[in-house]
């Protein structure tokens, strides 16, 4: 056999085989080279790319949401706080049959129709992969019963979340405002302002009031954790941690006790009151009645409550102090009087006879005084004390609209004051140029007459009136009205005072001011239109009543047929400051559909003064402010 093998070993065959083997070796080298080129490409040329991918695989960045700053009144009473609670959250995209699952869930955990409605609303507004709360403040029992049944509910989880709470609800809702879930519009805004990264992980954002306008202060700076995760998404270890910086606490200028006193003084009436410290522009009280429970908005308001608030004839969502525009009525007169003196159109001694009406020369039409038959002989002092209309009709005609506009404009009427919450409206202080622009009509002398007594085109907000009153009270200093007194670093407890800002000085002769101010004091004394409110006050105070006509005003209320008469009653107004010789508080009150200023508005001002000047409001308890925000939160666990 071996022999046979040998015979077959032809040289030709061997040569052929060796060529084939050499060719094979060539192929081996070629294919190894291909591999090598591939390795070189992956590991050298593309190394950075794949390194980045490997790191992205390995490291996930988790945002750490900062605790939102708290809000206090000037004496340290809490207006907005945080608490932690467990919520039941649903990721809609992970739940196959949402309705059936929720029905099943409801057998374990109480889910009210309201909860469901609110959830449905959220569902419509949110992306499918976002975690949406369906119930908050779960009890221990509920947490336990869900935990046992968790396997039945994929896509549903219990999460510990920090919540906002407004303990004072209606009382300060128009000041504090509220936070609510971040929506698409908010996201767009955050993106365009470059703040989106800071809100990764945040669920809420300030929507209105202090919560909105001080969002940057309150939100804080998000931290993040770099976490190494494995392929299954489990966290292996924390690589680095940048802790979040909690938002700053805000101490408002608001005096909660005063706010409460003012709110109570309104009784059942609707209206607004703004009280300022004439020495710095701090807003001491800012009432718009009725208010609303701002807690309803935090988790997204349900349809039922929304309808209730939005369609209520009382319009509780309307911030009357900030956005309500009303003809100032006779509260306009002190400013007219100052204009008369400053512009030399009247002397204090000038006296006219009031027959009960005024007519423009050569025109038949009579402009009536509110008092039939008139006030008899009236000088400037008396014109304010008894609120004589005829005196101002004649004065206005002598001043002309543009003088009125320019002089009274200095008191901020018809202009935004620049208060530190958003949404303020400007109202209107008319001028000839304005009318031409708005209506393409020239200004008639008759138009000026009604402006003189704060009617006609005049529209002011209660905030503007309070601002103007402050300028009289402090002899011309236009301080920026503001709601935030101090900003407190919630970590260190250090506070930074928000300084008073003097916008400008209205230059008036002291003697002129004194004449007007003396008259305003006499308004609250026997013989004055607010004499009743002034009885037995332990201090002297100055004020001016006003009545603002409802019919014809441009505030587009949709009146209910049944209440049309009541809702067309005049609004009562009162501007005042006290004590008259050294003002500590200046305010404007508006009481809707309540009649004359002297009878309803002035007594409210009196009660507010009594509380502020004589009352036993609690002493500051600033000590509790220095507590860090985290600690606060844990108190409520």
């Amino acid at each position: 056999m071996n022999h046979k093998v040998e015979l077959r070993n032809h040289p030709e065959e061997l040569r052929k085989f060796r060529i084939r083997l050499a060719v094979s070796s060539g192929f081996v080298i070629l294919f190894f080279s291909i591999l090598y080129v591939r390795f070189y490409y992956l590991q050298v040329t593309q190394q950075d790319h794949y390194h980045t991918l490997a790191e992205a695989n390995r490291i996930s960045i988790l945002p750490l949401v900062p605790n939102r700053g708290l809000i206090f009144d000037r004496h340290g009473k809490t207006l907005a706080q945080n608490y932690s609670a467990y919520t039941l959250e649903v990721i809609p995209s992970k739940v196959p049959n949402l309705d059936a699952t929720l029905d099943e869930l409801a057998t374990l955990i109480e889910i009210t129709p309201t909860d469901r409605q609110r959830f449905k609303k959220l569902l419509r507004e949110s992306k499918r992969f976002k975690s949406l709360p369906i119930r908050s403040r779960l009890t221990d029992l509920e947490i336990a019963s869900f935990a046992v049944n968790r396997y039945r509910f994929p896509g549903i989880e219990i999460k510990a979340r920090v919540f906002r709470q407004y303990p004072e609800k209606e009382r300060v809702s128009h000041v504090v405002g509220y936070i609510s879930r971040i929506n698409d519009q908010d996201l767009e805004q955050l993106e365009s302002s470059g703040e989106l990264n800071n809100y990764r992980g945040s669920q809420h954002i300030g929507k209105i009031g202090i919560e909105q306008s001080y969002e940057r202060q309150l939100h804080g700076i998000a931290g993040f954790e770099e976490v190494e995760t494995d392929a299954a998404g489990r966290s292996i270890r924390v690589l680095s941690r940048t802790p979040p910086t909690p938002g700053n606490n805000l101490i408002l200028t608001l005096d909660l006790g005063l706010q409460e006193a003012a709110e109570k003084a309104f009784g059942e009436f609707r209206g607004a009151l703004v009280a300022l410290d004439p020495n710095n522009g701090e807003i001491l009280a800012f009432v718009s009645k009725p208010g609303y429970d701002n807690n309803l908005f935090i988790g997204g308001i349900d349809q039922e409550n929304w309808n209730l608030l939005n369609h209520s004839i009382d319009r509780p969502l309307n911030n009357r102090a900030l956005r309500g525009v009303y003809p100032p009525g006779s509260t306009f007169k002190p400013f007219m009087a100052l204009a008369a003196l400053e512009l030399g159109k009247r002397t204090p001694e000038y006296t006219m006879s009031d027959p009960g009406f005024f007519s423009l020369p050569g025109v038949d039409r009579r402009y009536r005084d509110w008092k039939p038959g008139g006030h008899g002989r009236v000088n400037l002092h008396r014109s304010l004390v008894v609120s004589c209309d005829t005196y101002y009709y004649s004065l206005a005609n002598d001043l002309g609209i543009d003088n009125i506009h320019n002089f009274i404009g200095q008191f901020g009427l018809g202009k935004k004051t620049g208060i530190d919450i958003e949404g303020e409206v400007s109202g209107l202080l008319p001028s000839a140029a304005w009318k031409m622009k708005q209506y393409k009509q020239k200004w008639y002398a008759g138009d000026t007459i009604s402006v003189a007594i704060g009617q006609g085109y005049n529209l002011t907000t209660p905030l503007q009136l309070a601002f103007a009153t402050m300028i009289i009270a402090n002899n011309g200093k236009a301080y920026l009205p503001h709601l935030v007194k101090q900003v407190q670093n919630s970590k260190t407890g250090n506070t930074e005072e928000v300084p008073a800002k003097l916008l400008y000085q209205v230059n008036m002769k002291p003697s002129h001011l004194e004449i007007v101010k003396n008259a305003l004091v006499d308004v609250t004394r026997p013989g004055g239109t607010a004499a009743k409110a002034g009885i037995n006050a332990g201090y002297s105070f100055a004020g001016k009543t006003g009545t603002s006509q409802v019919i014809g005003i441009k505030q587009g209320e949709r009146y209910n047929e049944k209440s049309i008469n009541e809702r067309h009653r005049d609004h009562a107004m009162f501007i005042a400051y006290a004590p008259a010789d050294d003002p500590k508080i200046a305010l404007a009150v508006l009481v809707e559909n309540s009649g004359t200023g002297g009878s309803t508005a002035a007594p409210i001002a009196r009660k507010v003064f009594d509380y502020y000047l004589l009352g036993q409001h609690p002493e500051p308890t600033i000590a509790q402010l220095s507590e860090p925000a985290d600690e606060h939160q844990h108190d409520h666990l």
Partner: protein
Amino acid sequence: MIDIRKIWYYLTRYIDGLLLAGILALMLVGLIVLYSATGANINKVSHQMVNMVIALVIMWLVANIPLQQIKRLALPMYVLGFALLIAVALFGEISNGARRWLDIWVTKIQPSELMKIAIPLMMAWYFDKHEITLRLRDYLGAVIVLMLPVALILKQPDLGTAILIAASGFYVLFLAGLSWRIIAGLIVTAAASFPLMWSFMHDYQRQRIMTLLDPSQDPLGSGYHTIQSSIAIGSGGLIGKGWQNGTQTQLDFLPEQSTDFIFAVFSEEFGLIGNTLLLLLYLGVIGRCMVITANASTQFTRLIAGSITLTFFTYIFVNMGMVSGILPVVGVPLPLISYGGTSMVTMLLGFGILMSIQTHPKLIKT
């Protein structure tokens, strides 16, 4: 003293030292990488060591058998293997959607593994028998001998094994002197028949080919393997992340990291420098095998040695190619390094045959 020398003599008599050194070096690399890939799982590493020892013993046994003896086994082995493949097709056990295993009373066997050795033996025997004539008719017979079992394995389906077995048979044909014209014709036919093959392919096989063309098409499905292994290799860079420091490996982003994708682990942790050394080591082993092949004295031994050598190379190329994303993912282990006993035994059985060829007395042409 004299006893030990005698034992050493009998132990090493039919062993090729150079080849063994290369094999042992690769095994050592395999154990080091496996330790890292399994997350320092000493049980798995020792189990692999047991596999290696068994495989080495089998290699030694085979090396001690003269090729004439082995040659006699060629036809029976082929017939047995073929019969078993038919049995698999009829009664085989299905796991992971494929019918690959046959339950015989004691254990489960995968007959396609047996074919990996039986095919080159059978083909070499066939050509040895028809050596002088070698007409086209003989080649056709050889192709049928090859394609019948390949078709059965494709049917299981096991694309990786089918490719390797077809390749080992083709190498015999090629080395036996199949004319270049026919080879060119085969290539053209293969290219032309691709659409037909496509229609016979299983969905997952088609998916793998599609995925190769664009892994990002299905990043969490069939593209996941390729994407993650490319990231592992690429992020290893020039010098690698260091032993046991590969994040893709240690954090389990890399799939099948101790078996088919173990090369990505090696690459991530030892970088291009490690890859270079590993390729050189493989090239060394292949080179030694080529030398043995070139020195083989008969057509039968030449063909069998050449086929084993080139199949070994094919394993390496297909595995590294799929792990680095230039070939579709087919289940081919990296020889001597991937975890698993079966392929280790098959591989060393082949090396045993090579050693037998090298060390048994050759018939020198007079």
